[in-house]
């Protein structure tokens, strides 16, 4: 598989001291969904903005579809589509007028634009609302309209910046389906950023975890989860004794820690290992009082690599959504 996006030592420093993106290297394969996962201020949007030629890198280089983002910026712009974090559609214009505006910005003749707009509005299920002003659209409809605008030039690579930010669960799932369709039916390459771990897990073929402007790890969600060293088992016993040594001897167990009277165990093949541990303990005269088995999620991967809980990011996401609402109201 060839790499359609390639970044080498890509760096952005704002005002000479604020390093938003710090010498990152990565490649995105043709036809895959590649996700940038990281907390706020990690450098995700800055990376996208460099790749879509809005920002000039301070150092390093990158190419999209074989075009250099510095020297061949206009060619990059022609083969990429962008669905930004914000709702950029003009509130005073109708959905269709907005799509035409995007088409005009790409210099697409009106007769071709008409055909494409009809197809795209059908794809995102906005055909019935195309002549309504965007003011009247819900958040989900606006997001879909952005998607239609981003696809008007039939891009080879579509950039999605937080595609489901602030959407309810139902709309989010629907958006995921559109994204999957683009990959499956159009063979499009998608580059997305997200806060949502479950989104990265459900959609992305490969994920890069980014924090403080640096890529910490890249891999498929499965590989990343596997890299944590298997499932985690938590158990407690009735007796007041330390059984760590005993558990450690059980097959597949990799690590045992005693925390607040409970044992946290990391083990491969959790479903097989758990009964073995219980049996070993019972044979030695101990009674298990509590037990839980969790398979690793991307959440734990995230925690492991960034040392941050996702809750912090969750709160700031709500703050962004609130700010956006305020701005929209202020404008009316």
């Amino acid at each position, binding site marked *: 598989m060839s790499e359609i996006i390639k970044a080498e030592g890509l760096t952005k420093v704002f005002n000479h001291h604020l390093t938003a993106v710090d010498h990152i290297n990565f490649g995105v394969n043709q036809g895959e969904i590649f996700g940038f996962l990281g907390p706020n201020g990690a450098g995700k949007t800055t990376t996208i*903005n460099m790749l*879509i*030629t*809005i*920002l*000039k890198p301070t150092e390093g280089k990158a190419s999209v579809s074989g075009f250099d983002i510095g020297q061949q910026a*206009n060619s990059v*712009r*022609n*083969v*990429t589509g*962008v669905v*930004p*974090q*914000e*709702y*950029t559609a*003009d509130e*005073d*214009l109708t959905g269709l*007028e907005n799509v*035409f*505006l*995007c088409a*005009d*910005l*790409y*210099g*697409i003749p009106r007769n*071709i634009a008409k055909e494409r707009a009809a197809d795209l509005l059908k794809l995102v299920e906005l055909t019935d609302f195309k002549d309504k002003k965007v003011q009247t659209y819900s958040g989900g409809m606006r997001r879909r309209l952005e998607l239609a*605008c981003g696809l008007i*030039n*039939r*891009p*080879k690579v579509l950039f999605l910046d937080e595609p489901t930010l602030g959407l309810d669960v139902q709309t989010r799932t629907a958006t995921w389906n559109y994204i999957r369709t683009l990959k499956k039916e159009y063979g499009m390459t998608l580059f997305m950023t997200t806060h949502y771990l479950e989104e990265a897990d459900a959609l992305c073929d490969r994920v890069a975890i980014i924090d403080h402007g640096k890529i910490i790890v890249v891999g498929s969600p499965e590989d990343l989860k596997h890299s944590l060293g298997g499932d985690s088992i938590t158990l407690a016993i009735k007796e007041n004794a330390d059984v760590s040594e005993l558990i450690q001897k059980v097959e597949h167990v990799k690590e045992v820690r005693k925390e607040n009277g409970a044992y946290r165990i990391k083990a491969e093949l959790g479903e097989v290992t758990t009964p073995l541990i219980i049996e070993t303990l019972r044979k030695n005269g101990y009674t298990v009082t509590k037990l839980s088995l969790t398979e690793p999620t991307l959440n734990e991967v995230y925690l492991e690599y960034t040392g941050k809980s996702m809750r912090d990011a969750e709160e700031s996401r709500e703050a962004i959504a609130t700010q956006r609402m305020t*701005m929209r109201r202020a*404008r009316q």
Partner: protein
Amino acid sequence: MSETNGNSKSKLHGLWALTNRELKKWYKAPVIFLLSIIQPILWMGLLGKAMNIGAMFSSGTFTLPQDLISQFTPTQLHLLGSYFAGLQTSILQGAFNTTDYFSFMAVGMIAFTALFTTMFSGMSVVWDRRLGFLNKALSTPVSRAVIIFSKVLSATLRSMFQAGLIILIAVAFGLQFGAGFNPINVLGVFGIMFLICVGLSSVFIAITIRSTRIETPMAVVNLINLPLMFASNAFFPTKFMPDWLQTIAKVNPLTYTTDAVRQLLIFSTDWGQLALDFTYVGIFAVVAATIGIVLSWSFLSK
């Protein structure tokens, strides 16, 4: 997949689409459109009819004391009467170059509109930045210069439409055209309006494009709009101003714009002066547009 995008598009593609986007917000919103028509009428009514400077010099204001009148013969009184009647005309003619202050002021309104419309439409740049539309446009192959120039052009077209409207309204209110007035002169008015608006909006866009808060350009606009307006000949001739104010008025491009419009509409045209006005405003437009577009461009490609 993207061959159909073609390379045939011109460097200016997207200019009209972006300009029309701005204009649509105006002509498709009945309230805003109506207000932009009412505004000049209001100003004209307030400044032109309420502050009727011409009426101050009418013969009604001059009444001689009765004991003075009794000393004159009827013939002398008649001569004196016609002298005072003529005084009004000559004062107005001497001060305003026309006998009708309303005509003088109505034309000043045109420059006033150019200033206000261009100033406030610069604000839309701030919104485009905050709402992400600017970044969206920057990610398309549309030229950076086109993005900026579409803002300039939409402000210019709006101002020119309003200028035309003001002329029509002023005529309805009793604007007196100059002796040598020819309908073709109206084209000259649009010409000078185009130049001043391109210049002014380029400056304001260069100021506003850097700010993320709407308050900053608002403060700048509020600080400079009225001083700039009154330090010009829009409502009052500069020759009665103190020296320092005259100096400001002399470099203020609005002075030349207003003078050009007066020369074209209500004065008996002084072609030399008109040529000077056009040259001055033309140079201002070119310099301001160059500086404005270069500054905005360097900001957009940071």
